[in-house]
């Protein structure tokens, strides 16, 4: 009887291992063109296209989860999903808590946006999205920082005069500036991060390696650069 149970247990364990692994990937869905909710109510954007391709190459079954930016790292750490693809810049502070794959986007510039060329960027009030690398940067300057939960509210703060300027990822701010007739880029661009990578749990080495291999392959054959150009235009930074 005992042997039978052991055999059954072993069988159950190995059966579990043979099962196709389902990887749940979280994204914010409010950061176009990296990730957004499209008109069908589904997540879309650069990262969703890229993520699906990476999963296909790594032979993983992937599903997408929407999660607020605020709680996106805590929910990864408590295993509500297995990976984050949400335009998350790789930096030292985050590496303490989670692990990153190699970057799928090269280090990108961050820019200031304001209504007025003369906006005071050094000591004025600057609006940022909370918990971003841009927020950490503004905190280290003399400017007063205002934090908002998402990028849309950052622009709203500039428009209604709560903040003198907004500071954020250049590629995210560009369409907002181009579509509007009041917002303009001001000041110098700043380079802050080591690029954008997939966030995974520190204990999840296997998943990180599989993603790394897939990202490496896509960098090699040029398909990653093609995808970047498709979403961010010809001028966008690509991998060498």
């Amino acid at each position: 009887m005992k042997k039978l149970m052991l055999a059954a247990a072993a069988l159950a364990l190995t059966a579990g291992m043979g099962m196709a692994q389902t990887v749940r990937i979280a994204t914010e869905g409010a950061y176009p063109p990296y990730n957004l909710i499209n008109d069908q109510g589904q997540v879309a954007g650069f990262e969703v296209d890229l993520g699906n391709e990476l999963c296909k190459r790594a032979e993983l079954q992937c599903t997408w989860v929407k999660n607020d930016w605020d709680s996106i790292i805590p929910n990864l750490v408590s295993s509500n999903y297995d990976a984050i693809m949400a335009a998350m810049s790789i930096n030292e502070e985050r590496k303490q808590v989670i692990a990153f794959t190699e970057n799928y986007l090269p280090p990108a510039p961050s820019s200031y946006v304001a209504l007025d060329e003369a906006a005071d960027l050094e000591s004025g009030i600057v609006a940022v999205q909370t918990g971003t690398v841009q927020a950490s940067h503004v905190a280290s300057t003399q400017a007063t920082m205002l934090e908002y939960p998402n990028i849309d509210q950052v622009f709203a703060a500039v428009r209604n005069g709560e903040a003198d300027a907004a500071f954020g990822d250049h590629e995210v701010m560009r369409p907002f500036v181009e579509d509007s007739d009041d917002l303009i880029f001001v000041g110098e661009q700043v380079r802050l991060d080591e690029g954008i990578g997939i966030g995974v749990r520190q204990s999840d080495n296997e998943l990180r390696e599989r993603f790394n291999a897939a990202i490496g392959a896509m960098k090699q054959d040029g398909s990653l650069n093609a995808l970047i150009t498709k979403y961010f235009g010809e001028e966008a930074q690509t991998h060498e």
Partner: protein
Amino acid sequence: MSCYLTTGNHMLFYASFGTVLLLLAVTAPAALLFGFGGALAVRSRLAGLRLFGRVYTSMVRGVPDIIFFLFVPIAMDQGFEWLRSRVYCDPSVPVRQGNEFIVCAAAKLPLSTSPEWVHQAYGLFLAVIAFAVVFGAFAANVLHGAMRAVPQAQLETAEAYGMTPRQVSRRILIPQMWTYALPGLANLWMILIKATPLLFVLGVEDIVYWARELGSAKTSAYSYPHPDWRLYYFLGVLAFYLLMTWGSERVFDRIRTRLSRGQATAAGEAMRKAAP
């Protein structure tokens, strides 16, 4: 215009009204049940049960809602997963590894292979429990007060007729307490309606989430670019909430009239005098 209003994400917006109504429909009875249990526990003759009732009603009412909403679902979720991990996983592996909470794939709740609607239903289930616990504590206090408002003389008369305490509760106390409980419960219901946007804290996509999402400025990355339209979406949501509270007021008025009939209260007395 009609194309814009019938896109997939607008459909999800309309469906989220259903989510809110479903939550209200499930939570209200559940909270009432918790409240009833709490009130009976506070009145119990067993000291332990009484203590439990007191701790429940005063502690939950004293903690800010939002803390409770963050705590209860997360604690329950991790509790369930821990229990399952003891059964389905190797028990020698700790669930806490550094700052990470990890259980093996078989113990995940819901399983990561299950479809998205299961995850959403599970989230809604946790939300219902959290709402029921919080509002149950308030309801317990209201019901406890209502039970004490039933004239003592009536309960003593019932005892004099030879009814057991249980019979007194069931035949005299509970049927009569509703008229005293109604104003408090109506109040709670209104607060519950207004508290539903807290759903979003728990990751359930409710009407406020969708209003914010659809109303926020859309760049040319979307099929229908538009500036910040949140004001209009939130006005729509406002209309919904006002309609809900206005409708509930009318329903409660009818119930109040019904319950006051034949009662030894000012309202009941007025009805008796008005009758021909």
